[in-house]
């Protein structure tokens, strides 16, 4: 009855709070909607701005603007850069250092460079590394689907991970998400290509709380994957039920932090535990998964 009472009391809160919450959602959704034309429009505008800004710069360097000479038919470029091959008026010369070219791909957008596996999005290709002039097939935003249980997620994946037997603390909030590929031309193909299963959970032991993230990176057949780059790599290894587990244990921000990774069935499993207690508890969860 107590529960119903609380539910009823909270259910009767003022309409203004309800309206505010809905309006906030609408406003935010509108502002967060990713519109392809905004992205490309912004990119094109930036390129145009660079081109226009470069004209006075070229003039400042003592170069006659190519377009200025169209009428009289004289060579477009004079001065220190006049020996470039393209003399035709109005045609952009790729050798002209006055024209800003897009930055080269540094490769930093590689999947797995983020230090935090729980916040790292899958690689969708970095826009800044793309040639704005080229036409590429459209990609979809990586769909993330939340499931109510591990079983539901497994049904959607049509595959059972080692987390089938996971025991979750039902008194705590648990989020179970599957990230599907965003690097596909349409949503259907995206859903056919799961990338990661992420389970955010916590366990309340009274005296301390463990926050545990369970991840599976599908088809990541290497424990050297930089997915957990940035963490303290201590090179600790042990065998549990025939599975080689690589792990590290350290203290961070007053929490006992442990992280393990291992391969199973061609997939990379990562278990990350942050405990508010005084001892590392990684083994509890490792044994639960690999028992």
């Amino acid at each position: 009855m107590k529960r119903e009472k609380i539910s009823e009391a909270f259910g009767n809160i003022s309409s203004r709070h309800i309206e505010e919450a809905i309006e906030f959602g609408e406003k935010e959704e509108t502002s967060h909607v990713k519109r392809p034309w905004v992205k490309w429009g912004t990119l094109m505008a930036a390129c145009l701005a660079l081109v226009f800004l470069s004209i006075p710069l070229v003039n400042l360097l003592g170069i006659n603007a190519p377009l200025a000479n169209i009428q009289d038919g004289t060579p477009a470029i004079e001065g220190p850069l006049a020996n470039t091959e393209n003399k035709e008026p109005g045609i952009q010369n790729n050798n002209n250092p006055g024209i800003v070219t897009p930055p080269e791909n540094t490769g930093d957008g590689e999947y797995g460079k983020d230090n935090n596996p729980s916040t790292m999005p899958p690689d969708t290709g970095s826009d800044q590394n793309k040639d704005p002039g080229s036409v590429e097939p459209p990609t979809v935003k990586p769909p993330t689907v939340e499931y109510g249980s591990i079983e539901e997620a497994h049904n959607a994946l049509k595959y059972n991970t080692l987390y089938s037997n996971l025991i979750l603390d039902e008194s705590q909030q648990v989020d179970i998400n599957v990230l599907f590929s965003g690097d596909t031309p349409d949503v259907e193909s995206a859903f056919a290509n799961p990338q990661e299963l992420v389970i955010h959970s916590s366990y309340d032991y009274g005296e301390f709380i463990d926050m545990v993230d369970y991840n599976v990176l599908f088809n990541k057949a290497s424990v050297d994957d930089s997915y957990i780059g940035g963490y303290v790599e201590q090179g600790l290894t042990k065998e549990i039920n025939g599975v080689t587990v690589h792990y590290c244990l350290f203290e961070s921000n007053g929490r006992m932090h442990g992280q393990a990774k291992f391969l199973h069935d061609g997939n990379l499993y990562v278990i990350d535990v942050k405990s508010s207690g005084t001892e590392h508890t990684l083994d509890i969860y490792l044994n639960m998964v690999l028992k």
Partner: protein
Amino acid sequence: MDDSKIIELFYERSEQAIVELSKKYGDTCHKIAFNILKNDLDAQECVNDTYLGAWNNIPPQRPNPLRAYICRIARNIAIKRYHQNTAKKRNSYYDVALDELEDYLSSGASVEDEVSTAELTKMIDDFLDGLDKTNRVMFVRRYWFSESVSEIAALFNMNSHTVTVRLSRTRERLRRYLIERGVTI
């Protein structure tokens, strides 16, 4: 169509009122019902019952704002359906949200012995008024709309852990707020 025009259609007993209501608020109602029931068919039935509820209540009522009124009907119907569906078995969504609140508001002595529902609602309203907008919207979306932490995190562009911590702090503040006003916690 404006809410006032939709209400006029209800007053004229025009079935177009349902069509317009569905167009304007059907998705919102469905989302609320689905958050609680986690079943598409059940949620759709709740939405249909919501329209029926509106049809039966308007007139004589002339709700303003209409949206909050419709959402409230949808939520109440969904909760009722939820209790019917899960007389013994507990749902891991709505119950989790309610559990979070109850953890902070429960006591040996029932809350109902101390204050009436209306008083408790007034206190919660006042408490919400005292919160900053972010925490208030977060709190309402979690415990009124039963949205998941990850949905809220996405809305606020935060990670789930941050949202969980914020909600936890707000619940604790609510607990202290109620204690200060004589509610036995």
